[in-house]
């Protein structure tokens, strides 16, 4: 093992070590030593990622190496190994940084919880699994990390396991993700069938040769194998990155403690699907059909989930629907072949969304675990740091220059306008309209929580105060990149050579090269925004929110009343949950009950097994004169049968 590989291996392992120590010895160590040890591990992982992995890959030293041979099956070597290139290094920095912030924040948020050590064990395990996912150099390990983060997500959504709503949400999240993983594992199997390898490098090197491979699916129809592979892999991404119609688990995942909503269900795990598709860009570039699917699914998610954000009353659910919508934006970018823009938005979103969630968490602790926006209001006087942090996060999310989200979102909208795939017009309209809706729901939340008259009860109001430093420090540290990341990163990520070969785009339809020709620096980019639609849509959204929730706060109730039907549809989330619960889950249970009661009990056991027994009984009753006693009848039948069959066989030869 080279020293580089050893150092890279150490990065996930320190997280795993922290998790195991917290899990097995947490009780002995006590709360303080548990979080000290776990945070030390995460800090080491962050430091190694930021000062070793990132500079090293930026200097052009990629690494693609095997850690160990997991197994060799059917001649196929299956390994655990790392591919550290700029894409991976960037993800490692983002994951470990947000994770570190969330770990520190957890000290404040989970103080006094009986599961304190267990919580630290889980989030450190999550960081380990997420790192294994982004560092993988093959599909097997990718799937390991993929399901590993899913496991921890399940454990953390159901962290408060005595709450019925939490354990329901955790099971739902796991099963919906499994629906996606079902596609994902078939995609991996398809890759094995076509390429006889699961290593990224081998697969990508042979993409050209596989271009003409086809797969017969039903009757005479056959599909391009690469399209099948891409769509199957994307189904996995739809589960993990919560794209319609597999998005239903993410709003419910808010049942988990807020730190994990920030880390897992906003900043990192849910972006695994985006990362995976970007990683697979050499495959997706071969299939316009698959990219068209990606584009349409992403655009639908971006717009329709944003609409749902407007009617939520739970502060965390507003941000959750916002996350869904923003993941849709990233997905649209993938479909438009602007992989770099998707990753750019992934990075800025990780900062400002983690910031918004942690700020919301700060509000929630201050209000003694009250999450209902209708019981907030006027908090700006009591919680200045949280208030400022929410402003920064909201401006970034709404896409106001020069905050981080502005650059990445504008880049995506720009890129879609260049796309010529079927569905591109729809996608463009959706992401553009989404800008208005995003700004509206974001500032609706901000105004409802921090402005107007306080609506909480008097006792809570008297005890309101800013959260402790372990909570506010991460807010400040996340606010900085939420402001700066866009300006700093736009040039290297979108128009520079940061990613080099990590993201592959066919030259002919590379939207970023076209955009690069118009790019004349950060200030010019901001200047252009003032003469294009998105910025004005965002400002209009903010203005509308201001008008409805500060200037004329009595209006929303009247609008809701007049648009009752539309409002009901939005509150019901378009009925997806009903379809899953009353449609799919109920029919699976009904089918199970039918197959059991009718298939097993009545047909197989009733008619055949016991029926045979009855038949034997009847024959036996008839033959009672010859023999007596039950077991002898069976023995007689057996010997007779044996004799007949033997005779038959021997004569047939």
């Amino acid at each position: 093992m080279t020293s580089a590989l050893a150092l890279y291996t150490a990065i996930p392992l320190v997280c795993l070590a922290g998790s195991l120590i917290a899990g097995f010895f947490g009780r002995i160590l006590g709360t303080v030593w548990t979080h000290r040890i776990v945070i030390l591990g995460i800090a080491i992982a962050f430091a190694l990622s930021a000062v070793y992995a990132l500079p090293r890959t930026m200097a052009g030293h990629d690494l693609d190496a095997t850690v160990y041979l997991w197994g060799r099956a059917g001649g196929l070597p299956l390994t655990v190994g790392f591919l550290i290139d700029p894409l991976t290094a960037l993800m490692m920095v983002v994951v470990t940084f947000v994770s570190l912030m969330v770990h520190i924040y957890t000290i404040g948020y989970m103080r006094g919880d009986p599961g304190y050590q267990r919580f630290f064990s889980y989030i450190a395990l999550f960081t380990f699994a997420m790192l294994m996912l982004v560092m993988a150099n093959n599909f097997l390990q990718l799937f390991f990390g993929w399901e590993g983060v899913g496991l921890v997500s399940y454990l953390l959504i159901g962290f408060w396991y005595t709450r019925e709503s939490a354990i329901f949400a955790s099971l739902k999240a796991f099963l919906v993700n499994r629906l996606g993983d079902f596609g994902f594992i078939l995609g991996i199997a398809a890759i094995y069938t076509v390429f006889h390898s699961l290593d990224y490098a081998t697969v990508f090197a042979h993409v050209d040769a596989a271009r003409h491979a086809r797969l017969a699916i039903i009757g005479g129809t056959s599909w391009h194998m690469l399209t099948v592979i891409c769509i199957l892999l994307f189904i996995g991404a739809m589960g993990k990155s919560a794209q319609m119609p597999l998005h239903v688990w993410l709003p419910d995942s808010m049942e988990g403690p807020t730190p994990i909503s920030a880390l897992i269900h906003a900043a990192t795990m849910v972006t695994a699907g985006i990362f995976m598709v970007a990683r697979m860009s050499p495959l997706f570039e071969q299939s316009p059909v698959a990219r068209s699917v990606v584009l349409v699914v992403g655009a639908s998610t971006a717009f329709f989930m944003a609409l749902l954000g407007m009617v939520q009353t739970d502060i965390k659910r507003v941000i959750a629907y916002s996350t869904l919508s923003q993941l849709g934006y990233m997905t649209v970018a993938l479909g438009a072949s602007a992989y770099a823009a998707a990753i750019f938005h992934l990075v800025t979103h990780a900062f400002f969304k983690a910031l918004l969630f942690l700020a919301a968490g700060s509000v929630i602790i201050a209000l003694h675990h009250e999450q209902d926006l209708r019981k907030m209001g006027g908090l700006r006087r009591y919680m200045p740091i949280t208030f400022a942090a929410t402003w920064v996060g909201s401006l970034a999310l709404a896409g106001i220059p020069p905050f981080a989200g502005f650059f990445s979102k504008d880049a995506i909208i720009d890129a879609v306008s260049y796309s010529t795939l079927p569905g591109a017009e729809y996608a463009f309209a959706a992401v553009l309209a989404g800008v208005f809706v995003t700004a509206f729901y974001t500032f609706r939340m901000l105004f409802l929580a921090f402005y107007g008259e306080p609506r909480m009860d008097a006792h809570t109001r008297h005890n309101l105060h800013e959260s402790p430093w372990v909570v506010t420090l991460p807010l400040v540290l996340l606010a900085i990149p939420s402001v700066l990341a866009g300006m700093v990163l736009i040039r290297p990520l979108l128009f520079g050579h940061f990613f080099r070969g990590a993201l592959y785009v066919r030259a002919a339809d590379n939207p970023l090269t076209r955009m690069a020709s118009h790019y004349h620096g950060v200030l010019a980019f901001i200047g252009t925004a003032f003469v294009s639609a998105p910025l004005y849509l965002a400002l209009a959204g903010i203005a509308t929110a201001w008008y409805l929730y500060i200037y004329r706060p009595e209006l929303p109730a009247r609008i809701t009343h007049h648009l009752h039907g539309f409002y009901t549809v939005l509150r019901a989330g378009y009925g997806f949950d009903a379809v899953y619960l009353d449609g799919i889950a109920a029919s699976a249970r009904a089918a199970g009950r039918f197959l059991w009661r009718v298939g097993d009990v009545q047909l197989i056991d009733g008619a055949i097994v016991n029926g045979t027994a009855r038949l034997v009984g009847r024959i036996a009753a008839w033959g009672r004169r010859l023999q007596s006693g039950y077991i002898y009848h069976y023995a007689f039948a057996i010997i007779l049968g044996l004799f007949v069959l033997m005779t038959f066989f021997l004569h047939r030869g």
Partner: protein
Amino acid sequence: MDVYRHIALSIAIWLPIVFGVAILLGGRRYPGLVRPLAAVGALATFLVTVPLWGLFHNDSFAMQFQESVPWIPAFHINYALGIDGISLPLVLLTSLIGVIVVMAAGPAVKDRVPEYFAAFLIMEGLMIGVFSSLDAMLFYVFWEAMLIPMFLIIGIWGGPNRVYATIKFFLYTFLGSVLMLVALLYLYFRAGETFNIISFYHLPLGETPQILIFLAFLIAFAVKIPMWPVHTWLPDAHVEAPTGGSVVLAAIMLKMGAYGFVRFSLPIVPLASHVLAGLMITLSLIAVVYIGLVALMQDDMKKLIAYSSIAHMGFVTLGIFLFNRIAMEGALVQMISHGFVSAALFLCVGVLYDRLHSRAIHDYGGVANRMPIFAAFMMLFAMANSGLPGTSGFVGEFLVILGAFKVNFWYAVLVATSLISGAAYTLWMYKRVIFGPVTKPSVAGLSDVTGRELSFLAVLGVAVLALGLWPAPLLHVMTASVHHLLWRPGVRLAGVTP
């Protein structure tokens, strides 16, 4: 070491039987010695089998550790033993589970204690005999004899409906194996009056006899696995069996049917195996899909795990009849993994049953509040049962899915539905039993695992994780044998090139 090579298998078979008989004879007089003696017997057997792994030549498909002495010379029946890379892991699994069941027989076993341990030890020896016989008649004797202790275990230490379950089990399995005996006799005459299994491999058989022999074997093996639609004895047997009986039944006995296909059907009647592969694949896929749905609706935890076993064994039979190496190796890994996981889940139910005397899911809820360590272990095993990567349950399923896609897209789609159904029935059960608030006074009185329970759960937990994180050693052991099975000179079973 040379001596060991020639007696190891015999010791592994007879040592537990000798201990079992000794306990049977002396247990009444020295009741205090029964448990220590049983523990020593099981542990010694396990230790005897461990060096088999180290001394095994991984690169050879040949039978190793062979022994052969004439047994009934008049009919050329030999006491012939030997193992290859397919049977070695099963022998080790058996001896490990032997230790586990002895550890698992806690204070809950109160009646006829000497007979209980004797039955398990004798059964262990007989099962190792099944996996290491190279003479078909010897195999048949072990195969039938091992059922007797199992009948007794269910019939004596079983639940209230044990008589029905025992008779059902007996009829199914006994009727099944009678036809196998017919087929073996036919082969005996065709091979020139020998029961040597390896010599059966070289018989030039026509298509019709091949198909008839295949069907005769099929009934015997399909019942044992069990395959749909001859599976209905298994849930009943599990429900009535005591915990140890369920563990052995699920972990070892179900594997014998699959072992039979690999040891007998495929190599002896390759043509028929090919011709009837479609049937086998169909039945396997039905097992995965149909049983996956049925398992969802079970309220009895043991029934649920029993149905889950049938679905998981569907992966095994599918992997065997896809005729490619990756699927076959997946099937064999799945057999070992299922041995660990199903044993562990039945033990978990046993831990709960010993405390509350109920297997009904609705009698529990919120167990995690009272038994956090137990909840953590059961989570691990539930996840393994759902095929989570990093646990043994993933390895076999993953390889079978890879192999299935290679053969047919739809096979892969159908078998991969277990990713969803397996997680659904396992985790839904887990949620209802372990999570939630404590609402029942009986659950409020639960105490966490004892040291004894912790030790056997930990052993299986380590096994599940080790196999999940590093299956390479297990895969390596079987590679040569699987390759030989599919590409034996002159008989090309596999449809695709290696």
